[in-house]
Protein backbone atom coordinates (compact mmCIF):
# COMPACT_ATOMS: atom_id res chain seq x y z
CA UNK A 1 0.00 0.00 0.00
CA UNK A 2 1.20 3.46 -0.86
CA UNK A 3 0.96 6.39 1.54
CA UNK A 4 -2.31 8.31 1.51
CA UNK A 5 -2.29 12.03 0.73
CA UNK A 6 -4.69 14.71 1.95
CA UNK A 7 -4.80 18.33 0.86
CA UNK A 8 -5.98 21.17 3.04
CA UNK A 9 -5.78 24.90 3.73
CA UNK A 10 -2.86 26.30 5.70
CA UNK A 11 -3.79 27.72 9.09
CA UNK A 12 -0.24 28.00 10.40
CA UNK A 13 2.78 27.20 8.21
CA UNK A 14 5.59 24.78 8.95
CA UNK A 15 6.55 21.14 8.59
CA UNK A 16 6.38 18.31 11.15
CA UNK A 17 5.96 14.54 11.30
CA UNK A 18 5.00 12.06 13.98
CA UNK A 19 2.47 9.58 15.27
CA UNK A 20 -1.21 10.50 15.05
CA UNK A 21 -3.54 10.83 18.02
CA UNK A 22 -7.10 10.84 16.71
CA UNK A 23 -10.38 11.69 18.43
CA UNK A 24 -13.87 12.26 17.10
CA UNK A 25 -14.64 14.41 20.13
CA UNK A 26 -13.90 18.11 20.32
CA UNK A 27 -11.32 19.20 22.86
CA UNK A 28 -11.63 21.79 25.63
CA UNK A 29 -8.52 23.85 26.40
CA UNK A 30 -8.99 25.46 29.80
CA UNK A 31 -10.36 22.80 32.17
CA UNK A 32 -9.98 20.16 29.46
CA UNK A 33 -6.23 19.62 29.34
CA UNK A 34 -3.27 19.74 31.68
CA UNK A 35 -0.84 22.06 29.87
CA UNK A 36 2.11 20.76 31.87
CA UNK A 37 1.81 17.24 30.46
CA UNK A 38 -0.49 17.56 27.44
CA UNK A 39 -2.98 15.17 29.06
CA UNK A 40 -6.73 15.33 28.38
CA UNK A 41 -8.51 15.67 31.75
CA UNK A 42 -12.16 16.24 30.78
CA UNK A 43 -14.33 13.83 32.86
CA UNK A 44 -16.26 12.15 30.03
CA UNK A 45 -13.75 12.56 27.15
CA UNK A 46 -12.77 9.44 25.18
CA UNK A 47 -9.09 10.45 25.41
CA UNK A 48 -9.18 11.14 29.15
CA UNK A 49 -5.75 10.33 30.60
CA UNK A 50 -3.96 10.34 27.21
CA UNK A 51 -1.38 12.94 26.19
CA UNK A 52 -1.01 14.72 22.84
CA UNK A 53 2.55 15.76 23.63
CA UNK A 54 4.74 15.16 20.59
CA UNK A 55 1.80 13.80 18.55
CA UNK A 56 0.00 14.97 15.43
CA UNK A 57 -3.40 15.77 16.90
CA UNK A 58 -6.34 14.94 14.59
CA UNK A 59 -9.71 16.11 15.89
CA UNK A 60 -12.96 17.82 14.86
CA UNK A 61 -12.19 21.11 16.62
CA UNK A 62 -12.18 23.14 19.81
CA UNK A 63 -14.90 23.64 22.39
CA UNK A 64 -15.42 25.19 25.78
CA UNK A 65 -13.71 28.09 27.48
CA UNK A 66 -12.07 30.98 25.67
CA UNK A 67 -8.97 30.09 27.66
CA UNK A 68 -8.32 27.54 24.86
CA UNK A 69 -5.45 29.41 23.23
CA UNK A 70 -3.84 30.35 26.55
CA UNK A 71 -3.77 26.70 27.68
CA UNK A 72 -2.20 25.48 24.44
CA UNK A 73 0.15 28.49 24.54
CA UNK A 74 1.27 27.26 27.98
CA UNK A 75 1.62 23.72 26.61
CA UNK A 76 4.05 25.06 23.98
CA UNK A 77 6.13 26.78 26.67
CA UNK A 78 6.25 23.62 28.82
CA UNK A 79 7.10 21.45 25.80
CA UNK A 80 3.83 19.52 25.98
CA UNK A 81 2.15 20.83 22.80
CA UNK A 82 1.19 18.65 19.84
CA UNK A 83 3.62 18.58 16.87
CA UNK A 84 0.89 19.57 14.43
CA UNK A 85 -2.89 20.07 14.27
CA UNK A 86 -5.31 18.66 11.69
CA UNK A 87 -8.93 19.66 12.26
CA UNK A 88 -12.26 20.22 10.49
CA UNK A 89 -14.12 23.04 12.23
CA UNK A 90 -12.72 26.55 12.20
CA UNK A 91 -13.34 28.62 15.34
CA UNK A 92 -11.58 31.58 16.89
CA UNK A 93 -10.39 29.31 19.72
CA UNK A 94 -8.58 26.91 17.45
CA UNK A 95 -7.28 29.56 15.03
CA UNK A 96 -5.72 31.60 17.81
CA UNK A 97 -4.57 28.45 19.62
CA UNK A 98 -2.81 27.16 16.51
CA UNK A 99 -1.18 30.57 15.91
CA UNK A 100 0.25 30.86 19.42
CA UNK A 101 1.31 27.17 19.48
CA UNK A 102 3.55 27.92 16.45
CA UNK A 103 2.70 24.40 15.26
CA UNK A 104 1.89 23.56 11.63
CA UNK A 105 -1.88 23.38 11.24
CA UNK A 106 -4.28 22.57 8.40
CA UNK A 107 -8.06 22.54 7.88
CA UNK A 108 -10.62 22.36 5.00
CA UNK A 109 -9.38 19.00 3.66
CA UNK A 110 -10.36 17.30 0.41
CA UNK A 111 -11.21 14.22 2.54
CA UNK A 112 -12.19 14.03 6.20
CA UNK A 113 -8.97 13.27 8.12
CA UNK A 114 -11.08 11.55 10.81
CA UNK A 115 -12.11 8.97 8.17
CA UNK A 116 -8.57 8.42 6.92
CA UNK A 117 -6.22 8.73 9.91
CA UNK A 118 -6.17 6.40 12.93
CA UNK A 119 -4.26 6.71 16.17
CA UNK A 120 -0.79 5.31 15.64
CA UNK A 121 -0.54 6.14 11.92
CA UNK A 122 2.61 8.01 10.89
CA UNK A 123 1.73 11.46 9.57
CA UNK A 124 3.89 14.00 7.73
CA UNK A 125 2.41 17.50 7.72
CA UNK A 126 3.66 20.11 5.26
CA UNK A 127 1.42 23.04 6.09
CA UNK A 128 3.24 25.42 3.75
CA UNK A 129 2.28 23.22 0.78
CA UNK A 130 -1.02 22.14 2.34
CA UNK A 131 -0.19 18.42 2.12
CA UNK A 132 -0.53 15.59 4.65
CA UNK A 133 1.11 12.19 3.99
CA UNK A 134 -0.23 9.23 5.97
CA UNK A 135 1.44 5.84 6.44
CA UNK A 136 -1.01 3.42 8.02
CA UNK A 137 -0.14 1.75 11.30
CA UNK A 138 -0.52 -1.77 9.81
CA UNK A 139 2.06 -0.96 7.16
CA UNK A 140 4.44 0.46 9.71
CA UNK A 141 4.21 -2.82 11.63
CA UNK A 142 4.93 -4.84 8.47
CA UNK A 143 7.90 -2.66 7.62
CA UNK A 144 9.31 -3.15 11.12
Amino acid at each position, binding site marked *: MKPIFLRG*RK*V*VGGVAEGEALVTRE*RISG*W*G*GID*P*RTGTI*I*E*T*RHELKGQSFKGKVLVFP*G*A*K*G*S*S*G*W*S*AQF*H*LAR*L*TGAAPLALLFN*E*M*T*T*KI*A*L*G*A*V*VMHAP*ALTEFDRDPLEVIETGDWVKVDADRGVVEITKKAQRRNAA
Partner: protein
Amino acid sequence: MLEGRDGPAVQRAMDLLRRYGEALGAERLVDTNNVTGTIGATTPFMRDFASQRGGMDAIFSEFNLDSPEVVKVPKVKVFSSHLQQGIDPLHAERQGLSQEVVQLFRKGEAFSAGLGVQLMNTCTPYQVGNIPVKGEHCAWMESSAVIYCNSVLGARTNAEGRESSGAAMLTGKIPYWGYHLDENRYGTHLVELEIDVESTADWGLLGYYVGEIVQDRNPVLTGIKHVPNLPRLKHFGAAASSSGGVEMYHLVGITPEARTLEEAFGPRKPELTIRYGAAERRLAYERVNASARDSEIQFVMLGCPHYTIEQIWEVCRLLEGKRVREGVGLWIFTPRAIKQLADQNGYTKIIEDAGGFLMSDTCSAMARAVPKGTKVAAFDSVKQSHYLPAIMGIQGWFGSTAECVEAAVTGRWRGDLE
Protein backbone atom coordinates in the same frame (compact mmCIF):
# COMPACT_ATOMS: atom_id res chain seq x y z
CA MET B 1 0.62 50.20 13.00
CA LEU B 2 2.13 47.10 11.40
CA GLU B 3 5.14 49.12 10.22
CA GLY B 4 5.95 50.17 13.76
CA ARG B 5 5.07 53.86 13.78
CA ASP B 6 3.11 53.34 17.02
CA GLY B 7 5.95 51.50 18.72
CA PRO B 8 7.06 47.87 18.99
CA ALA B 9 4.18 46.63 21.20
CA VAL B 10 1.52 47.89 18.78
CA GLN B 11 3.54 46.44 15.90
CA ARG B 12 3.60 43.05 17.65
CA ALA B 13 -0.13 43.32 18.31
CA MET B 14 -0.84 44.00 14.62
CA ASP B 15 1.44 41.15 13.58
CA LEU B 16 -0.50 38.75 15.83
CA LEU B 17 -3.85 40.01 14.52
CA ARG B 18 -2.58 39.54 10.93
CA ARG B 19 -1.50 35.92 11.62
CA TYR B 20 -4.72 35.21 13.50
CA GLY B 21 -6.88 36.75 10.76
CA GLU B 22 -5.08 34.65 8.12
CA ALA B 23 -5.58 31.48 10.18
CA LEU B 24 -9.31 32.22 10.37
CA GLY B 25 -9.56 33.14 6.72
CA ALA B 26 -10.86 36.62 7.65
CA GLU B 27 -10.83 39.23 4.88
CA ARG B 28 -10.10 42.18 7.12
CA LEU B 29 -10.07 43.60 10.63
CA VAL B 30 -12.91 45.59 12.16
CA ASP B 31 -12.69 48.50 14.63
CA THR B 32 -13.71 47.85 18.22
CA ASN B 33 -13.94 50.06 21.27
CA ASN B 34 -14.92 47.36 23.76
CA VAL B 35 -12.44 44.70 24.79
CA THR B 36 -12.51 42.28 27.73
CA GLY B 37 -9.50 40.16 28.50
CA THR B 38 -7.05 39.04 31.08
CA ILE B 39 -3.48 40.18 31.68
CA GLY B 40 -2.91 39.05 35.27
CA ALA B 41 -0.22 36.57 36.28
CA THR B 42 -1.19 34.66 39.39
CA THR B 43 -0.99 30.98 38.37
CA PRO B 44 2.22 29.29 39.59
CA PHE B 45 3.60 29.03 36.04
CA MET B 46 2.93 32.71 35.26
CA ARG B 47 4.32 33.82 38.59
CA ASP B 48 7.60 32.03 37.86
CA PHE B 49 7.63 33.35 34.29
CA ALA B 50 7.17 36.93 35.53
CA SER B 51 9.93 36.68 38.10
CA GLN B 52 12.39 35.07 35.65
CA ARG B 53 11.72 37.05 32.46
CA GLY B 54 11.29 40.62 33.63
CA GLY B 55 7.92 41.25 35.22
CA MET B 56 4.59 42.31 33.77
CA ASP B 57 5.88 43.61 30.40
CA ALA B 58 7.33 40.14 29.80
CA ILE B 59 4.01 38.52 30.72
CA PHE B 60 2.06 40.81 28.40
CA SER B 61 4.58 40.32 25.57
CA GLU B 62 4.45 36.52 25.68
CA PHE B 63 0.90 35.80 26.84
CA ASN B 64 -1.02 38.72 25.32
CA LEU B 65 0.96 39.42 22.16
CA ASP B 66 2.68 36.08 21.41
CA SER B 67 5.93 38.04 21.23
CA PRO B 68 9.05 36.18 22.40
CA GLU B 69 10.81 39.54 22.57
CA VAL B 70 9.88 41.62 25.64
CA VAL B 71 8.31 44.93 24.53
CA LYS B 72 7.32 47.91 26.65
CA VAL B 73 3.53 47.95 26.83
CA PRO B 74 1.82 51.32 26.25
CA LYS B 75 -1.58 52.43 27.56
CA VAL B 76 -4.51 50.64 25.95
CA LYS B 77 -6.03 52.39 22.95
CA VAL B 78 -9.68 51.46 23.60
CA PHE B 79 -12.10 50.74 26.48
CA SER B 80 -10.80 47.56 28.08
CA SER B 81 -12.13 45.54 31.03
CA HIS B 82 -10.26 42.97 33.07
CA LEU B 83 -11.96 39.61 33.48
CA GLN B 84 -11.73 37.32 36.52
CA GLN B 85 -8.32 36.94 38.14
CA GLY B 86 -6.45 34.01 39.67
CA ILE B 87 -6.90 34.90 43.35
CA ASP B 88 -8.95 36.95 45.80
CA PRO B 89 -6.30 39.05 47.59
CA LEU B 90 -8.55 39.43 50.65
CA HIS B 91 -8.94 35.66 51.08
CA ALA B 92 -5.49 34.56 49.96
CA GLU B 93 -4.64 32.51 53.02
CA ARG B 94 -7.96 30.67 52.88
CA GLN B 95 -7.32 29.97 49.19
CA GLY B 96 -3.93 28.51 50.10
CA LEU B 97 -1.79 31.39 48.83
CA SER B 98 1.22 33.10 50.38
CA GLN B 99 1.63 36.84 50.93
CA GLU B 100 4.26 36.74 48.18
CA VAL B 101 1.53 35.77 45.70
CA VAL B 102 -0.67 38.59 46.97
CA GLN B 103 2.17 41.05 46.36
CA LEU B 104 2.53 39.75 42.78
CA PHE B 105 -1.21 40.12 42.33
CA ARG B 106 -1.07 43.72 43.56
CA LYS B 107 1.81 44.41 41.18
CA GLY B 108 -0.18 43.01 38.29
CA GLU B 109 -3.22 44.97 39.32
CA ALA B 110 -1.23 48.22 39.41
CA PHE B 111 0.22 47.37 35.99
CA SER B 112 -3.26 46.78 34.52
CA ALA B 113 -4.70 49.95 36.06
CA GLY B 114 -1.67 51.90 34.79
CA LEU B 115 -2.41 50.72 31.25
CA GLY B 116 -5.99 51.97 31.62
CA VAL B 117 -7.60 48.53 31.95
CA GLN B 118 -10.71 48.62 34.14
CA LEU B 119 -10.28 46.29 37.11
CA MET B 120 -13.76 44.78 36.98
CA ASN B 121 -12.19 41.40 37.87
CA THR B 122 -15.19 39.37 36.86
CA CYS B 123 -16.43 36.87 34.30
CA THR B 124 -19.61 39.02 34.16
CA PRO B 125 -18.51 42.50 33.02
CA TYR B 126 -22.13 43.07 31.92
CA GLN B 127 -23.05 43.22 35.63
CA VAL B 128 -20.71 46.05 36.53
CA GLY B 129 -20.71 48.76 33.91
CA ASN B 130 -19.79 47.15 30.61
CA ILE B 131 -23.02 46.68 28.71
CA PRO B 132 -22.42 46.97 24.96
CA VAL B 133 -25.33 48.04 22.78
CA LYS B 134 -26.98 46.01 20.02
CA GLY B 135 -24.75 45.85 16.98
CA GLU B 136 -21.61 47.07 18.76
CA HIS B 137 -18.44 45.27 17.63
CA CYS B 138 -16.63 43.88 20.65
CA ALA B 139 -13.60 41.72 21.33
CA TRP B 140 -14.62 39.75 24.38
CA MET B 141 -13.02 36.80 26.03
CA GLU B 142 -14.69 34.43 28.57
CA SER B 143 -17.16 32.03 26.99
CA SER B 144 -20.02 32.76 29.41
CA ALA B 145 -19.67 36.51 28.78
CA VAL B 146 -19.35 36.08 25.00
CA ILE B 147 -22.60 34.12 24.74
CA TYR B 148 -24.36 36.73 26.91
CA CYS B 149 -22.96 39.59 24.81
CA ASN B 150 -24.12 38.10 21.50
CA SER B 151 -27.40 36.55 22.55
CA VAL B 152 -28.90 38.71 25.30
CA LEU B 153 -27.38 42.10 24.39
CA GLY B 154 -27.22 41.67 20.60
CA ALA B 155 -23.68 43.05 20.48
CA ARG B 156 -21.15 41.26 18.27
CA THR B 157 -18.16 39.29 19.41
CA ASN B 158 -16.37 36.04 18.82
CA ALA B 159 -14.86 34.12 21.72
CA GLU B 160 -11.53 35.88 21.77
CA GLY B 161 -8.55 34.54 23.66
CA ARG B 162 -5.98 36.03 25.96
CA GLU B 163 -3.64 36.90 23.08
CA SER B 164 -6.19 38.35 20.65
CA SER B 165 -7.91 40.46 23.31
CA GLY B 166 -4.50 41.75 24.42
CA ALA B 167 -3.71 42.76 20.84
CA ALA B 168 -7.16 44.35 20.49
CA MET B 169 -6.62 46.47 23.61
CA LEU B 170 -3.54 48.07 22.03
CA THR B 171 -4.93 48.48 18.50
CA GLY B 172 -8.74 48.73 18.69
CA LYS B 173 -8.95 46.04 15.99
CA ILE B 174 -10.08 42.40 15.74
CA PRO B 175 -10.68 40.04 12.79
CA TYR B 176 -13.99 40.65 10.99
CA TRP B 177 -15.18 37.06 11.05
CA GLY B 178 -17.81 34.81 12.62
CA TYR B 179 -20.33 36.61 14.80
CA HIS B 180 -19.37 40.06 13.50
CA LEU B 181 -21.21 39.17 10.26
CA ASP B 182 -25.04 39.01 9.96
CA GLU B 183 -25.02 35.70 8.09
CA ASN B 184 -23.39 33.82 10.98
CA ARG B 185 -25.82 35.07 13.63
CA TYR B 186 -28.95 33.30 12.40
CA GLY B 187 -30.25 30.17 14.11
CA THR B 188 -29.21 26.72 12.94
CA HIS B 189 -31.08 24.35 15.30
CA LEU B 190 -34.63 24.52 16.64
CA VAL B 191 -35.18 23.57 20.28
CA GLU B 192 -38.77 22.98 21.36
CA LEU B 193 -39.40 23.05 25.10
CA GLU B 194 -41.98 20.49 26.16
CA ILE B 195 -41.63 21.25 29.86
CA ASP B 196 -41.72 24.49 31.77
CA VAL B 197 -38.19 25.75 32.41
CA GLU B 198 -38.20 28.30 35.17
CA SER B 199 -35.61 27.93 37.95
CA THR B 200 -31.97 28.93 37.56
CA ALA B 201 -30.94 25.28 37.99
CA ASP B 202 -33.34 24.25 35.23
CA TRP B 203 -31.97 26.87 32.86
CA GLY B 204 -28.51 25.43 33.58
CA LEU B 205 -29.62 21.88 32.76
CA LEU B 206 -31.29 23.05 29.56
CA GLY B 207 -28.09 24.83 28.49
CA TYR B 208 -25.99 21.75 29.22
CA TYR B 209 -28.26 19.50 27.18
CA VAL B 210 -28.58 21.85 24.21
CA GLY B 211 -24.86 22.71 24.12
CA GLU B 212 -23.84 19.07 23.91
CA ILE B 213 -26.06 18.54 20.87
CA VAL B 214 -25.53 21.74 18.89
CA GLN B 215 -21.84 22.10 19.87
CA ASP B 216 -20.77 25.46 18.40
CA ARG B 217 -23.91 26.20 16.37
CA ASN B 218 -26.79 28.60 17.12
CA PRO B 219 -29.83 27.11 18.86
CA VAL B 220 -33.24 28.81 18.68
CA LEU B 221 -35.53 28.04 21.62
CA THR B 222 -39.31 28.13 21.49
CA GLY B 223 -42.00 27.32 24.03
CA ILE B 224 -40.63 29.42 26.88
CA LYS B 225 -43.43 30.10 29.34
CA HIS B 226 -41.56 32.22 31.88
CA VAL B 227 -39.31 35.06 30.73
CA PRO B 228 -35.90 34.32 32.31
CA ASN B 229 -33.99 36.97 34.25
CA LEU B 230 -30.27 37.81 34.20
CA PRO B 231 -29.10 35.02 36.57
CA ARG B 232 -31.02 32.40 34.61
CA LEU B 233 -29.59 33.47 31.25
CA LYS B 234 -26.15 33.79 32.82
CA HIS B 235 -26.38 30.13 33.93
CA PHE B 236 -27.97 28.94 30.68
CA GLY B 237 -25.22 30.50 28.57
CA ALA B 238 -22.41 29.32 30.83
CA ALA B 239 -23.75 25.75 30.64
CA ALA B 240 -24.25 25.77 26.86
CA SER B 241 -20.75 27.13 26.29
CA SER B 242 -19.26 24.44 28.57
CA SER B 243 -20.85 21.29 27.18
CA GLY B 244 -20.56 22.59 23.63
CA GLY B 245 -19.09 25.80 22.35
CA VAL B 246 -22.28 27.81 21.90
CA GLU B 247 -21.54 31.52 21.40
CA MET B 248 -24.98 32.65 20.25
CA TYR B 249 -28.55 31.55 20.84
CA HIS B 250 -32.00 32.98 20.32
CA LEU B 251 -35.03 32.85 22.61
CA VAL B 252 -38.02 33.54 20.40
CA GLY B 253 -39.94 36.59 21.59
CA ILE B 254 -37.27 37.46 24.15
CA THR B 255 -33.74 38.06 22.80
CA PRO B 256 -33.07 41.06 20.51
CA GLU B 257 -32.50 39.28 17.20
CA ALA B 258 -35.41 36.87 17.61
CA ARG B 259 -38.64 38.83 17.86
CA THR B 260 -40.12 36.02 15.76
CA LEU B 261 -39.06 32.52 14.70
CA GLU B 262 -38.62 33.85 11.15
CA GLU B 263 -36.28 36.61 12.30
CA ALA B 264 -34.21 34.15 14.35
CA PHE B 265 -33.58 31.82 11.39
CA GLY B 266 -33.41 34.53 8.70
CA PRO B 267 -32.79 32.83 5.35
CA ARG B 268 -31.86 29.52 6.99
CA LYS B 269 -33.90 26.43 7.72
CA PRO B 270 -33.38 24.50 10.96
CA GLU B 271 -30.85 21.70 10.39
CA LEU B 272 -32.28 19.74 13.29
CA THR B 273 -35.24 19.97 15.64
CA ILE B 274 -34.51 19.05 19.25
CA ARG B 275 -37.19 18.32 21.82
CA TYR B 276 -36.51 19.02 25.47
CA GLY B 277 -38.79 17.18 27.88
CA ALA B 278 -38.56 15.37 31.21
CA ALA B 279 -36.32 12.58 29.85
CA GLU B 280 -33.83 15.06 28.36
CA ARG B 281 -33.78 17.03 31.60
CA ARG B 282 -33.06 13.82 33.55
CA LEU B 283 -30.24 12.92 31.13
CA ALA B 284 -28.64 16.37 31.52
CA TYR B 285 -28.87 16.06 35.31
CA GLU B 286 -27.14 12.66 35.24
CA ARG B 287 -24.40 13.94 32.95
CA VAL B 288 -23.71 17.00 35.11
CA ASN B 289 -23.49 14.72 38.15
CA ALA B 290 -21.22 12.18 36.39
CA SER B 291 -18.34 12.66 38.86
CA ALA B 292 -20.45 12.41 42.08
CA ARG B 293 -20.84 9.30 44.29
CA ASP B 294 -20.39 10.08 48.01
CA SER B 295 -23.01 12.06 49.91
CA GLU B 296 -20.65 13.44 52.56
CA ILE B 297 -19.45 16.85 51.30
CA GLN B 298 -16.68 19.18 52.47
CA PHE B 299 -17.22 22.18 50.22
CA VAL B 300 -20.04 24.24 48.70
CA MET B 301 -19.08 26.71 45.99
CA LEU B 302 -21.59 29.25 44.68
CA GLY B 303 -21.11 32.06 42.18
CA CYS B 304 -20.24 30.62 38.77
CA PRO B 305 -20.62 32.78 36.76
CA HIS B 306 -20.17 35.46 39.42
CA TYR B 307 -23.29 35.89 41.51
CA THR B 308 -25.66 38.82 41.09
CA ILE B 309 -26.70 40.80 44.18
CA GLU B 310 -30.10 39.11 43.90
CA GLN B 311 -28.49 35.67 44.17
CA ILE B 312 -26.43 36.77 47.20
CA TRP B 313 -29.63 37.99 48.82
CA GLU B 314 -31.28 34.62 48.10
CA VAL B 315 -28.43 32.80 49.87
CA CYS B 316 -28.71 35.17 52.84
CA ARG B 317 -32.38 34.29 53.22
CA LEU B 318 -31.65 30.56 52.94
CA LEU B 319 -28.86 30.84 55.53
CA GLU B 320 -30.80 32.92 58.03
CA GLY B 321 -30.78 31.35 61.50
CA LYS B 322 -28.53 28.49 60.34
CA ARG B 323 -24.83 27.71 60.57
CA VAL B 324 -22.46 26.13 58.10
CA ARG B 325 -21.39 22.77 59.50
CA GLU B 326 -17.96 22.47 61.10
CA GLY B 327 -15.50 21.12 58.56
CA VAL B 328 -17.51 22.36 55.55
CA GLY B 329 -16.46 25.39 53.51
CA LEU B 330 -19.02 27.71 51.91
CA TRP B 331 -17.46 30.09 49.38
CA ILE B 332 -19.54 32.48 47.30
CA PHE B 333 -18.00 34.46 44.41
CA THR B 334 -19.11 37.81 42.98
CA PRO B 335 -17.57 40.81 41.17
CA ARG B 336 -15.62 43.18 43.38
CA ALA B 337 -18.12 46.01 42.86
CA ILE B 338 -21.04 43.81 43.89
CA LYS B 339 -19.09 42.62 46.93
CA GLN B 340 -19.04 46.28 48.01
CA LEU B 341 -22.79 46.47 47.62
CA ALA B 342 -23.17 43.26 49.64
CA ASP B 343 -20.92 44.77 52.34
CA GLN B 344 -23.14 47.86 52.48
CA ASN B 345 -26.35 45.82 52.55
CA GLY B 346 -25.08 43.72 55.44
CA TYR B 347 -25.13 40.54 53.33
CA THR B 348 -21.42 39.84 53.77
CA LYS B 349 -21.93 39.89 57.54
CA ILE B 350 -24.93 37.55 57.34
CA ILE B 351 -22.88 35.06 55.31
CA GLU B 352 -19.83 35.37 57.58
CA ASP B 353 -21.93 35.08 60.76
CA ALA B 354 -23.27 31.80 59.38
CA GLY B 355 -19.73 30.58 58.75
CA GLY B 356 -19.46 31.19 55.00
CA PHE B 357 -17.33 33.59 52.96
CA LEU B 358 -18.19 36.07 50.24
CA MET B 359 -15.22 36.31 47.89
CA SER B 360 -14.52 38.34 44.75
CA ASP B 361 -12.21 38.63 41.73
CA THR B 362 -11.85 34.89 41.05
CA CYS B 363 -13.51 31.47 41.52
CA SER B 364 -12.42 27.99 42.58
CA ALA B 365 -11.74 26.84 39.03
CA MET B 366 -9.67 29.94 38.15
CA ALA B 367 -7.76 29.92 41.42
CA ARG B 368 -7.57 26.11 41.54
CA ALA B 369 -8.51 26.62 45.17
CA VAL B 370 -10.81 24.55 47.39
CA PRO B 371 -10.75 24.17 51.18
CA LYS B 372 -8.06 21.76 52.36
CA GLY B 373 -9.25 18.17 52.50
CA THR B 374 -12.07 18.61 49.94
CA LYS B 375 -13.00 15.30 48.33
CA VAL B 376 -16.61 16.04 47.45
CA ALA B 377 -18.06 19.45 46.58
CA ALA B 378 -21.50 20.81 45.72
CA PHE B 379 -22.39 23.51 43.17
CA ASP B 380 -25.47 25.29 41.89
CA SER B 381 -23.61 25.90 38.63
CA VAL B 382 -23.54 23.44 35.75
CA LYS B 383 -20.39 25.09 34.47
CA GLN B 384 -18.47 24.69 37.73
CA SER B 385 -19.76 21.09 38.04
CA HIS B 386 -18.44 20.43 34.55
CA TYR B 387 -14.98 21.90 35.13
CA LEU B 388 -13.93 21.84 38.79
CA PRO B 389 -14.05 18.05 39.38
CA ALA B 390 -11.87 17.59 36.25
CA ILE B 391 -9.44 20.34 37.29
CA MET B 392 -9.10 19.35 40.97
CA GLY B 393 -9.72 15.61 40.82
CA ILE B 394 -12.68 15.80 43.22
CA GLN B 395 -16.33 14.70 43.07
CA GLY B 396 -18.96 17.36 42.41
CA TRP B 397 -22.71 17.44 42.93
CA PHE B 398 -24.97 19.79 41.04
CA GLY B 399 -28.31 21.01 42.36
CA SER B 400 -30.37 24.05 43.24
CA THR B 401 -29.07 26.89 45.40
CA ALA B 402 -31.35 25.74 48.23
CA GLU B 403 -29.96 22.19 48.03
CA CYS B 404 -26.42 23.58 48.12
CA VAL B 405 -27.10 25.74 51.17
CA GLU B 406 -28.72 22.77 52.91
CA ALA B 407 -25.64 20.66 52.12
CA ALA B 408 -23.41 23.37 53.59
CA VAL B 409 -25.46 23.31 56.80
CA THR B 410 -25.76 19.52 57.16
CA GLY B 411 -22.55 18.34 55.48
CA ARG B 412 -24.56 15.88 53.38
CA TRP B 413 -25.85 16.01 49.83
CA ARG B 414 -29.55 15.22 49.66
CA GLY B 415 -30.30 16.85 46.34
CA ASP B 416 -32.34 15.12 43.69
CA LEU B 417 -34.18 16.06 40.55
CA GLU B 418 -37.71 17.04 41.47
